[in-house]
């Protein structure tokens, strides 16, 4: 049973509730007064993703590029199962580790150790498995004695290291990442990239959203360029990726 991801004509649209539409009182008032007093109850619909067609099989490492607000994070969340597509067909096979929000489940007042337990549980591990993995997690994070301190005393980088260590302690068939690796220092970024490759290994799928052309060129064998929720360019020839990135207007910041 190998991993695969398949999106056929997938669209995701969001209802955006203005302050009025989230109020029962205003909605009732609007229905009673024929909409005259209910202008703020209008629900705007935002088309976040439109007609996406993507096929990924085991071993694929997909890079997602695009401007801010293009829909990269929304696509990652759809792949993670957070948003059910409002149209189209989405099929996915394999266990998923999502590193979209590294601060997920992190409780600021709890210690690093307690957060390992919390996050591990939320990831679907049993208490025994978490206890077994804890020494490796602590070692990989490089936090040393800070692991017993409350997480609110950590710097952002330290918190990312902890979150990354916990999340990647499990081998996943599908790894979803929203770029934030740049927060770690150079030494950790190297370790993280190695770990990332291990986790996905030969039989996994990686989907990585990034603004960094170097990272994409290094890690990915396919790239998709998103703009305003649509795919405006794609390539699955690894050699063509640098040229594709340049044509897409994604250049290394000088």
């Amino acid at each position: 049973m190998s991993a695969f991801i398949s999106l056929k004509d997938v669209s995701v649209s969001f209802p955006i509730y203005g302050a009025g539409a989230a109020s029962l009182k205003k909605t009732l008032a609007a229905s009673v007064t024929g909409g005259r007093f209910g202008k703020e109850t209008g629900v705007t619909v935002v088309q976040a993703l439109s007609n996406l067609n993507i096929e990924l099989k085991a071993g694929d490492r997909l890079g997602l590029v695009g401007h801010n607000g293009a829909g990269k994070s929304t696509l990652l969340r759809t792949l993670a199962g957070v948003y059910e597509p409002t149209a189209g067909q989405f099929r996915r096979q394999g266990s998923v580790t999502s590193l979209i929000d590294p601060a997920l489940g992190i409780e600021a007042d709890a210690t690093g150790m307690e957060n390992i337990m919390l996050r591990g549980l939320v990831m679907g591990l049993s208490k025994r498995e978490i206890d077994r993995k804890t020494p490796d997690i602590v070692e990989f994070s490089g936090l040393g004695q800070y692991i017993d301190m409350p997480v609110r005393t950590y710097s952002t980088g330290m918190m990312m290291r902890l979150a990354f260590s916990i999340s990647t302690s499990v081998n996943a068939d599908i790894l979803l990442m929203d770029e934030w690796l740049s927060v770690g220092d150079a030494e950790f970024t190297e370790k993280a990239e190695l770990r990332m490759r291990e986790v996905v290994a030969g039989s996994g799928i990686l989907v990585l959203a990034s603004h960094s052309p170097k990272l994409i060129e290094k890690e990915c064998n396919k790239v998709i360029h998103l703009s305003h929720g649509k795919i405006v360019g794609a390539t699955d020839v690894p050699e063509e990726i640098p040229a594709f990135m340049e044509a897409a207007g994604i250049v290394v910041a000088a």
Partner: protein
Amino acid sequence: MSQVHSNLHRSAWSDWWEGTRRTDIWWTLAWFDIVLRYRRSMLGPLWLTLSMGAMIGGMGPLYASLFGTELSKFFPHLALGIIFWGFLSGTVTDSCNSFVNAAHYLRQGYFPITLFVWRTLARNVIQFAHHIVLYIPVALWAHISLSWDALLVFPAFLLMIVNAHALGLWLGLICTRYRDVTQIVTSIMQMLMFLTPVFWLPENLPGRAQYILWNPLAQMLDLLRTPLMGGEASLHSWLGILGWTVVNIVVCALLFRKYRRRVVYWL
């Protein structure tokens, strides 16, 4: 959450079960909610017991003399009234925010929403456990004698859990979509606190006002409190609560089935 199988489109029933069976997750989250809230305080969660103890100890003698009732009869009634009302009202108002407070979980991965309904309920049960111990000295002081009928409090408690979960689920859904319903619920609960025999004795109610006792919270309170005071809850209360349980479960099933996947769009 890492998924072992690839079934994306779980049926409503298996979605509900998936959240319910992970007791390790929601129980741990509930405990952490409490432990972390009191982490930097002097006495920790013991404050839960002390603050409730102060309220009961202060109100008991005062209200007994205000109502002109004997303290030994009134004190257990008041203590259990405040303790159980604290649990009922706390659970209802907390449930409004079950999903809103779990937004960062729900927005990152697929989480069965029932997980967070159980977490809220478990947290309130833990707080309740810190409060119910206060009844023991009160019962001893008032020389309450319990018969075997007292065991009926357990099925009553079970019924309460079922109702609290179902109510928490559909109320949580509504309150996530319409944010002002939370305020409405809080106001209603405040009003009901006085309309329900939490502080006052139901036997002091004049005959023509008996219908006030028909509210489901009053009936629930009767089922829970009376056995612990050595009495027997009325059949009227049992039937009433069983009826409300059915209504609750039906409403919950309908709303859950329709909106369980839309909640994340409302956050």
